[in-house]
């Protein structure tokens, strides 16, 4: 059983917002990566990845976020993460020091502030 990570995409003020629902692991990280990369047009200032509906994320997911950040940096675009205060995945992101590279925001509005 391979669970396809459902990545929901909306857009707010020219900034695409991608929200992966469910679990990101070895089984679906490649699929998830393809979906996230596809949602950023060259004209956009960057991407918000909203992890509020993500119930599982391990080092594969961490690597995906860091790779995404690197790609956007090269194309002079920004990445912002939304990780609610109570989210179980916050600790993994902190332990792997993702917050040193990509800003973690508690809400979507906070994240969008980054693009003002």
């Amino acid at each position, binding site marked *: *059983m391979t669970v396809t990570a459902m990545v929901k995409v909306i857009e707010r003020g020219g900034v695409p917002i991608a929200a992966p629902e469910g679990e990101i*692991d*070895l089984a679906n990280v490649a699929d998830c990566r393809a979906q996230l990369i596809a949602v950023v047009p060259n004209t956009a200032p960057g991407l918000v990845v909203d992890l509020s509906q993500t119930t599982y994320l391990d*080092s*594969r997911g961490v690597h995906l976020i860091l790779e995404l950040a690197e790609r956007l940096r090269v194309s002079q675009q920004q990445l912002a993460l939304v990780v609610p205060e109570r989210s179980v*995945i916050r*600790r*993994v992101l902190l332990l792997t020091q993702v917050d040193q590279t990509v800003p973690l925001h508690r809400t979507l509005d906070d994240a969008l502030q980054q693009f003002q």
Partner: protein
Amino acid sequence: MIVEAPERVSTKLILLVDDDPVLLQALPEALQLRMDGVSIETCDSAGRALQRIAEVDYEAIVTDIKMPGTDGLTLLAQIRALRPDTPTLLITGHGEHDLAVQALRGGAYDFIQKPIDREYFVASLIRAMQARQYKRQLDEQQRTLEQRTSDLEQTVRERTRELQFLADASRILTASLDSEATLRSIARLAVPRLADMCITSLAESDGQVRRVEVVHAEPSKEQRLRKLLERYPFNAVASEPTATVLRTGQALLVPEISAEWIRGLGDHTEELSVARTLGSTSLIIVPLVARGRTLGVIAFLTAESNRHYTRDDLALAEELARRAALAIDNARLYEQERRIAETLQRSLLPQRLPLIPGLAAAARYLAASPEAVGGDWYDLFPLPRGTVGLVMGDVAGRGVRVAALMAELRSALRAYAVEGYSPAEVMQRLALLIEPGEMATLVYLIFDPATQTVRFTNAGHPPPLAVAPDGRASYLEGGAPPLGALRMPSYHEQSAQLWPGTTLLLYTDGLIEVRGASIDDGLARLHHAVASAPAEDLDELVDRVLGEVTRGRPGGDDVALLALRAEIPDPARFHVRLPAVPASLPMLRHSLRRWMEAAQTNDEDAYEILVACCEACSNVIEHAYGAADGDLEVRGTMTDQEVEMIVRDWGRWRPPRGLNRGRGLRLIEELMRHVTVTPRPDGTTVQMRRTRRQVTV
């Protein structure tokens, strides 16, 4: 006194008896003058006449009625006794009407009154002889007719025997779909009716020829014949003329096996030498030809019966061979189709049931007969969020078409199920795949071990049975007609709440439909069988159910049986073994969550233990086995203070490469505090240990 007439082929002898020398002199002359082709003998007494009559078959006899000694009437009686067909004319005196009547009553052809009217006499004599001639012709025709009738009867008897023989052969040929058994029976049938020895052989696909059966009318000689033939395996040169018949497809008839004939075949006719040793006199070899291919030969030989084969025997042998070849060809086609169907069907049944953590499963498939393949199948597969799909289906009929429909339904069902369609939606879609004339029963269940609920839709299949740990069992009733029964079917979903630890039993009707018993009996027996020991090991359970419900005499149908039970997690211990593939990770997380929930682990601890274990397992999946298959095992122990997790594999790690580059291991160390990685030649163990956070109240 004999008056000689010129010898002529058609000369007819007439005897004249009279005591009057004048008449004996005059009458022959008168007759000779008036009749062609007759010669007349005369006798002057009845006694002498009788002697002659005994020696010569006269065409007609004329006798005087009044003679000294034996008179004419007495002589007439003696003639009637001796030569009943010879017409006799009597000469009576003038006015002796009484005598004349006596003469006619005594069997005289006519009487001639004195004085003799010669014209009348001659005319009467000629009529008498003609009548005799006609009678003779009639007798001849009668005899010919009788002979013809007898010949016909003989032919009919022979044809009847042949037809009976062919009818017996046809019965044998249609009785079995095993080509070798067929040929063996045919050989047995041919001896002794058609032959004293019969040898049947089949051509193999590699060009070799294998003797299938050797029969001799005498059992002792049969042993000898077999032994002799064993010394001579088929050889294209040595086995002339069998090889010729095989090659040309033309039958061979040898009415007389002579030494010259054998010499004429060459030096290597070992097979025939064998036959000759056993004294065979006559031979027929017929090819088994079907659809233009020669499948083998049948050799008929005579010996003890000293019978010599004729063209009629050859015709019968050829007819027999024609029918046998058809039967063998049919059997082979059937065998081929059966093998395809079987392969197809077996490939559709899970080789082994998927290992799903927290679930025990067992399945059995019993084929009713090795000859035909039924359309039963079962399936078990994990679905998202820890749920499990269970399928039991039965396509009506047997053979390749049925297996193909089964394959179609199975794949489509899996696809729709994984897409997330509900049981009713899946069934609705499967109904569209059924062609007119096809029919299948099917039950599809989604079982959620976490909540112990089932959602299911049943299309005409026997109801699944749910057995609680205390033995209470109930059928999951409710459903719709089979797939293919209605043009516009409408399927609905049913659901049931199960007791924790309930065993679900799915099966096909072959289990409950035992010949001579009603379905209700079968259902009751099944109910009883599972209720008596509900909590035993599932493999033991399914074996016992099969034994008890079918009572060792399964019906004519295949039986498929699938049992599933969600194990109740033990809060102190965790153990799963899964294939080392990415798809195992969601299943592992699901069962780990259930376990930690049972052990009342707080959310943060649970998540961190989850990530640590899955990191270790991801490493196994990526690094331990390469492209090969392998398993991974996760064990856990939990106390109030501490949790220890051990992930092990049976592969050889390669240095980390690719995306992750050791980040996973660092994360594990951060999450679990005490981490030991022990690589061994037979696998690697990752031991992780940490204290539990105290639950904040």
